[in-house]
């Protein structure tokens, strides 16, 4: 390659393979699916009718409510559990930091199915936890930890926790430790400093992490399918059922559009939040 060729090389070209992959494997099949399904309907108004019919069917409304409720709960749980872990990571170095980070990241590399089955072993009626509690005499009858909302929440919180921790950690690492020191030096107690300085400065991470976890949670399929009960039907499970069992591809497409729309709205919010953070110079 000549010198001029080197100079005229546009680094923007490097993104082309990624774009091509995305379009080939994601945009085209999705468009194919939607076009194929909706082309069978007669005209736009018919499609609109199908939309209203499908999205107002009681089963689907229930699934949407359940999906949002479970996602919100999981988001709250990952936040409550993840915040102290991220704080610990951001304020420790050396082997303690490495150990905690290892414990957070390694499960991340394991298949979701494997992790979910592991939880089922732990949580089942005759699972490890119930047997331990029974033999200790803490409880008289096994606790219902599996095949209900509790099971779904435990499983999903576990799977999504690393996303929350790592997002919070990234924000917390960016907090200037001099600001905390300044607050102490100016007479603020540790609690006051946390409430008025540290937490507000970590708020971007809280919002970003919550949005990421929520976005991932609303599309969850494996964990609620394996660990939930009959009433814990999430929207992704209905889509799968429509495609695989009832072969009602139109309903599947409509539910997919609804899910995609929700995700995009949340993504826009996420984008705005991170944009604001850039504006704040944090």
């Amino acid at each position: 390659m000549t010198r001029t060729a080197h100079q005229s090389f546009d680094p923007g070209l490097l993104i082309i393979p990624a774009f091509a992959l995305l379009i080939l494997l994601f945009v085209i099949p999705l468009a194919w699916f939607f076009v194929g399904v909706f082309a069978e309907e007669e005209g736009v108004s018919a499609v609109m009718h199908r939309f209203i019919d499908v999205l107002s069917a009681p089963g689907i409304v229930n699934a949407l409510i359940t999906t949002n409720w479970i996602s919100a709960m999981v988001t709250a749980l990952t936040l409550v559990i993840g915040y102290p872990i991220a704080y610990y990571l951001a304020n420790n170095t050396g082997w303690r930091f490495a150990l905690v980070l290892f414990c957070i990241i390694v499960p991340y590399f394991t298949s979701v199915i494997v992790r979910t089955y592991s939880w089922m072993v732990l949580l089942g009626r005759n699972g490890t936890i119930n047997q331990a509690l029974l033999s200790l005499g803490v409880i008289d009858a096994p606790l219902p930890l599996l095949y209900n909302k509790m099971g779904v929440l435990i499983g999903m919180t576990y799977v999504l926790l690393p996303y929350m921790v790592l997002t919070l950690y990234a924000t917390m690492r960016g907090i200037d430790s001099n600001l905390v020191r300044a607050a102490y030096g100016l007479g603020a107690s540790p609690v006051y400093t946390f409430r008025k300085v540290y937490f507000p400065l970590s708020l971007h991470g809280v919002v970003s992490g919550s949005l990421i976890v929520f976005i991932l949670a609303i599309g969850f399929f494996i964990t609620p399918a394996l660990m939930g009960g009959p009433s814990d039907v999430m929207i992704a499970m209905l889509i799968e059922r429509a495609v695989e069992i009832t072969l009602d591809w139109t309903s599947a497409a409509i539910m997919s559009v609804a899910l995609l729309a929700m995700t995009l709205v949340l993504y826009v919010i996420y984008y705005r939040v991170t944009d604001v953070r850039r504006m704040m110079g944090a």
Partner: protein
Amino acid sequence: MAQQEVQAAPSHHATDGLGTVSLQRVTKRYGEEAVVDDISIDIRSGEFFSLLGPSGSGKTTTLMMIAGFANVDGGRILVDGVDITTRSPQARGFGMVFQNYAIFPHLNVFENVAFPLRARGAPEADIKRRVGDALALVRLERFADRFSRQLSGGQQQRVAIARAIVFEPRVVLMDEPLGALDKNLRYDMQVEIKEIQRQLGMTVVYVTHDQEEAMNMSDRIGVMNRGRIEQVATPGEMYERPVNTFIGRFLGEANLIEGTLQDVSSAGAILRISHGLVLNAPSASTDLAGKKVHLFIRPERISVSAPPADAARPGTNSVAGQVRRRSFLGNVNRYAVTVGAAEITVDIQNTGGPGFEVGDDVALTWAVADSLVLGS
């Protein structure tokens, strides 16, 4: 600073005798190494005291121990006679100005300055009044709603100062507060900080590596080097009578002419330097007789004239030399003159004359009383 703003400032504890800080044999170790080694300083009420030293001298560590951010490994720190060595930083009640301002980015100027008051649970009306006063003092009244990212470096520095004084602490600690500002702004801020300190009468402990800054602002300076205090003195005293060669070199320009000290008496001494040359030296400790010492003399205390050198009159030195270099510094001409094997720097006020050229033979003259014998 305008007169009216001066009067708007709170000035209630100018001379109440409080705000003394006493370091007694304070030591800080990191592993085996003592980064602050057995230092004792008594800082007076209302004094502007600077800790001056090169980086790694332990000055910032000393300030952090006073502030409570670094543990004291030996010795005690007293404030107004009360031992605070083991108190938490927030219980010490100092005002603090940090190196990179440490302005809270999520709070506006008003809330930043109000922070120490809110942390102490001050009533809202009180907060309004005091923040208003503090902002007036640093001339930032019109910037109360701004955020730090909307302020210049000098303005951020003013916010940091207002925040440190708003709760009227007896003692304010400042850690290289002007380090990030450019030179002209630095000088203005030095004057401004000094003015605020004079009005409020608080004690200031100020850390800097900039000797001009320390000399300009301080009532007294403590020069630190390798974890020890080398000298504590007023700027004038330290400049005129450094206790050792380190201080002499560190504060301003200095000639340190090496030689062997002889004939030490109460009237004076003789310094034998290279090439059989002999200089008159002031009286010194008899312990130094026969030893290698340095004769300390400031470049501006030496005069240059055309040769020949006068026969040395008592009380003066007059030696022949040759100009090796000439640097034009604007207000002064700086000559490097070789005398024997020694090179002596001389600053001559630029009064418009032609001066001397490189290669000229000259005579250097100075009063013995302006020089000082410093042990090696």
